[in-house]
């Protein structure tokens, strides 16, 4: 398999002849030398995570003061439930971004898997519907991954195309209407442990597994390596392409699971479900410190990013802020997050 390119680079680095101009102008990290970032055992991630946590705590304190309902157990569970679907997609999405890739097809993928499940379950057993949805998630991931690694289509474009394809297929399959679904509310609404809803428990489990995977497996390390420098990674024997396909499949699985949760929460599958979810997912990941240039980022950071988004949306709702303004806020948050990413890259070089 040939090596995929990072989103940002567009072209493979070819024998230093086509270095982007920026690399020529940057003040040469070698010359300025200097010690690594303060303290952080894992490079620079620790202080950044601390800064994010401060933002999160500040938001919590603000809404706590402003609204008496904010710090109640029910509302906290509301926030967590609201971010669960996003989070189950954002965690594998972080793995992808670390490898220098991105999946924009997640929102329409979740709707597609949800509708596939619900329509199948009309004539078959529930479990068959679930398996169909999971199979579709894996298939979507495989197709995305192969497009990016074998056909070397830029991930933004490949998954943007997939976004449209899947949304269309979903409408076709659902005949443009909502498909109702009975006897499937457990996944989305049951509260088996400390009255915490299942989706939140699932998210917690997935986060723990992903943190360990990124830190302690060859798979995780290979994603970091290939995102950091795809050519260099290949030259030390890292199977970058295979790992990227696997990460896309992980993203597809997250998408399928999210689609099932949405079905279960609504007891119906809507072809318009999860529209624009990719925006929230990418916002959370980038806010959490993963770099669009690849090679940097942590699952922990994404979790904090998710919490910031969740708290902000919930708090604004409690304060009766018009939901249109909430949309403005989340768009602005994405732009701010990317600006910070760029600033961080520049500071890292100075």
């Amino acid at each position, binding site marked *: 398999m040939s090596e995929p390119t990072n989103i940002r680079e567009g072209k493979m680095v070819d*024998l230093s*002849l*086509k270095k982007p101009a920026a690399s*020529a102008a940057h003040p040469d990290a070698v*010359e300025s*030398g200097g*010690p690594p970032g303060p303290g952080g055992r894992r490079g620079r991630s620790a202080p950044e995570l601390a800064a994010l946590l401060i933002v999160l705590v500040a938001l919590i304190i603000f809404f706590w003061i402003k609204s008496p309902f904010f710090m109640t157990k029910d509302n906290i569970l509301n926030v967590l439930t609201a971010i669960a679907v996003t989070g189950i997609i954002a965690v594998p999405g972080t793995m992808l971004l670390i490898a220098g890739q991105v999946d924009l097809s997640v929102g329409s993928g979740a709707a597609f898997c949800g509708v596939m499940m619900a329509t199948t379950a009309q004539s078959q057993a529930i479990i068959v519907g679930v398996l169909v949805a999971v199979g579709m998630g894996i298939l979507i991931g495989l197709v995305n991954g192969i497009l990016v690694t074998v056909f070397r289509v830029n991930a933004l474009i490949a998954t943007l195309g997939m976004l449209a394809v899947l949304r269309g297929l979903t409408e076709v399959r659902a005949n443009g209407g909502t498909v109702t679904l009975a006897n499937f509310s457990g996944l989305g609404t049951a509260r088996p442990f400390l009255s915490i809803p299942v989706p939140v428990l699932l998210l917690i489990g997935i986060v723990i597994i992903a943190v360990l995977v990124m830190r302690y497996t*060859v798979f995780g390390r290979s994603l970091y390596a290939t995102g950091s420098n795809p050519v260099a990674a290949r*030259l030390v024997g890292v199977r970058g392409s295979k790992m990227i396909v696997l990460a896309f499949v992980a993203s597809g699985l997250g998408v399928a699971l999210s689609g099932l949760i949405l079905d279960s929460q609504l007891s119906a599958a809507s072809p318009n479900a999860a529209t624009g979810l990719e925006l929230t997912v990418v916002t959370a990941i980038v806010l959490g410190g993963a770099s669009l240039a690849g*090679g940097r980022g942590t699952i922990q950071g994404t979790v904090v990013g998710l919490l910031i988004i969740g708290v902000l949306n919930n708090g604004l709702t409690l304060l009766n802020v018009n939901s249109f303004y909430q949309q403005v806020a989340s768009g602005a948050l994405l732009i701010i997050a990317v600006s910070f990413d760029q600033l961080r890259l520049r500071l890292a070089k100075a």
Partner: protein
Amino acid sequence: MPSSTPEPVPAFTLRARGIRKSFGGTEVLHSVDVDIVGGRVLALLGENGAGKSTLVRVVAGAHAPDRGTLEFPKPDGDVETVTGLDPLAARKRGIRMIFQELSDAADLTVAENISLGHWPARAGIVSWRGMRHRAQQVLSSMGVDLDLGAAVGELRIGERQVVEIARALSDEATCLILDEPTAALSAEEVERLFGFVRRLRDRGVALVYITHRLDEVAAIADDVVVLRDGAVSASGPAREFQRSQLVTAMVGREIGAVARPPASAGEPGPVVLAFRRATSLRGFADLDLTVRAGEIVCLYGKVGSGTAEVADAVFGRRQLSGGTLKIQDLPPARNPRAAIDHGVGYLAADRQGEGALMTRTVAENLAAPSWPRLSRFGLINADQERRPFDRWRSALDIRAAGGPEQLLASLSGGNQQKVLLARWLERGSKLLALVEPTRGVDVGARADIYAALRELAGTGTAILVATSDYEEVVQLADRAVVLARGRVTRELQGDEITTEALTDAAGG
């Protein structure tokens, strides 16, 4: 070639006084003084990390100094003193910098590149005729003939550099800073570059020439400033310095001159690498080459002569179109991963682009090829991963103050290269194919790397070095094979390996 009398440029003098600059709490320039004068070539010397680039970036307006002043004496005797320049102010004073890495627009034509950023335009409408005219004028004043309509990306690297210099000149440069301009040039191109530099100097342009290569100082410099650890350790007219004095000023200790290593004690072992009548399209042709265990064979040739392609074939990055290649009696690997499993290690010429994982830690960079061995069922033990670093840190004198968790990007070039070399030592590679292993590596680290390679050869590793640096060949090779245009022109053994013999054989 036009030989008209050079047209003088306005007088330029810049006196930098007491320049200090810190990054992230570390001071990299400690009160540096330097004079840059029109009509003279100032060679700026120093190891990586000595502060050369930071200093010239202060002069070129890319960095603001924390302390110190830049003084511009005026013809009427007054002195204009500023505490720093921004890029625009530096441009207005005629200061131009040519970066080590090309900063041209590869997809645009030669003519467009020469006018890049200062297009001949009226009311915002660019005149293409004016652009071609200007390009023609400046190129012919340099005595160069290039196709103005060719995309710059299709030119050879030396020609692209010429285009960058032409851009600076057509933009009325009175002070031109060249950052290691010869790193990627062939001997011929270096000579031509020296020609430009001399001609510019005669026109009154002030030149600052950053280099690692001491022979270039003797060839081109009028004045020398040596930086060490962010302070000036020597300065004065170039002719007052011996080569050895410059080396001492750079590294702070004596380093032997270019000397042949003592002949290897033992007989070389069995053949590890054998090319037979091997051909690779647009690379090399009819190559016969063997490397034995315990032997260092240097493949010398100008950039583009095919040496790097031979190393690439050994590492499975390039396939043969004819002939055979055997590595330990096995056919060549189809990809780098298979080559690694065959026991081949490799360093690419472009360290940043193809070797380093800059955003990852030193320990991770070092351990990456050994992950299969350091992991069980795909799980990596973090403590185990740090151990390889501890193992090679002292053996190679890798200077990483932050330890195994320090980011690779924060190491100096020489130390980065040591880490990348250590990868293959840790992997236990039996054959190393190294392309330009000390490019951009300072003198001290270079000596460490040579010593490590010697020692490795002593323990039976077969080493193939593809290089365009003849001093490297003289210092390192048991045998040298010279390539020109993809074909072997000469094989040299032992004492036959001299700089004269090498450059002579590579010339054709």
